[in-house]
């Protein structure tokens, strides 16, 4: 049973986190931040633009990290 649970957890970890954990953590942080901002009065129309900009910025940050020259280069 433990082996199956471990395999199940490993599947979902690989599926959602994989080798780019910043995308998983960053996406959740962005959604939480937008939710909080709307709760304290951010205009919903502006929230959409900020959400889209943050999602795209997250992709950019991940790409920047992934394309860093290897040490020694």
């Amino acid at each position: 049973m433990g082996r199956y649970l471990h395999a199940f957890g490993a599947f979902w970890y690989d599926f959602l986190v994989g080798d780019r954990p910043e995308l998983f953590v960053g996406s959740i942080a962005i959604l939480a931040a937008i939710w909080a901002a709307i709760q304290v009065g951010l205009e919903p129309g502006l929230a959409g633009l900020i959400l889209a900009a943050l999602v795209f910025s997250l992709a950019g940050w991940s790409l920047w990290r992934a394309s860093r020259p290897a040490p020694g280069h």
Partner: protein
Amino acid sequence: MNVLVAALPAFLASAVEFVEALTIVLAVGVTRQWRSTLIGVAAAVVALAAIVGVFGSAIVLLVPISVLRLVVGGFLVIYGLQWLVKAILRAAGAKAKHDEDAIYAARVAAMREEPPVATSGMDWISFTVAFKGVLLEGMEVAFIVVTFGASAGQLGPAILGATLAGILVVAVGIAVHRPLARVPENGLKFMVGLMLTTFGTFWAGEGLGVEWPWSDATLIVLLGVFLVGSLAAVRLVQARLDGAATAHLAAVP
């Protein structure tokens, strides 16, 4: 439009995953035993159909649409960004492209190291490898079918899109009898990543209470912006890699 929203991403994502599953099935079938391999494939397809049917129906019937869109949107943003970032890195040359021929050769070599096939009855190695391969590749398809189908309220078209992709890939696979190495997998993954990220952002936003400026038409604007930005990102990553290579060469005495 909702029919297309559910069917097209399911079709494209499924085509990619089915090409990868076909490589596994061909490798096992050719080197071991077709009968057991095909039984493994059939068992995996039945399991996937049950997963889509049970989870798809449960989600549609039990989860309120605003909660569904927030959760599904969040998952799609995470998953879509993973596909998109990998596809951009591959397009820019920063990551090796998926090579179905090389994967096929490696799998065939691995299968040849297994114990010989039994002369009669089931070959459980063929069954297990085919079942696991199709189930794991198919789980990604099931995830996309359920999330897109449920969020767009169009589970049927999403299932149809995935089924058509499966039929197409299997038909071509039977016709050519080899892995589909010429399918532009990275291009498809780029498009699917863009779609998942776009729809994920849109639905998660709706779930959070965001008001999109042009209602559903905002999807097209978002897709266009993400597409242009992603193509620019390919160029930027290429330029960064070229710059690093030039600096490295200049530093070599």
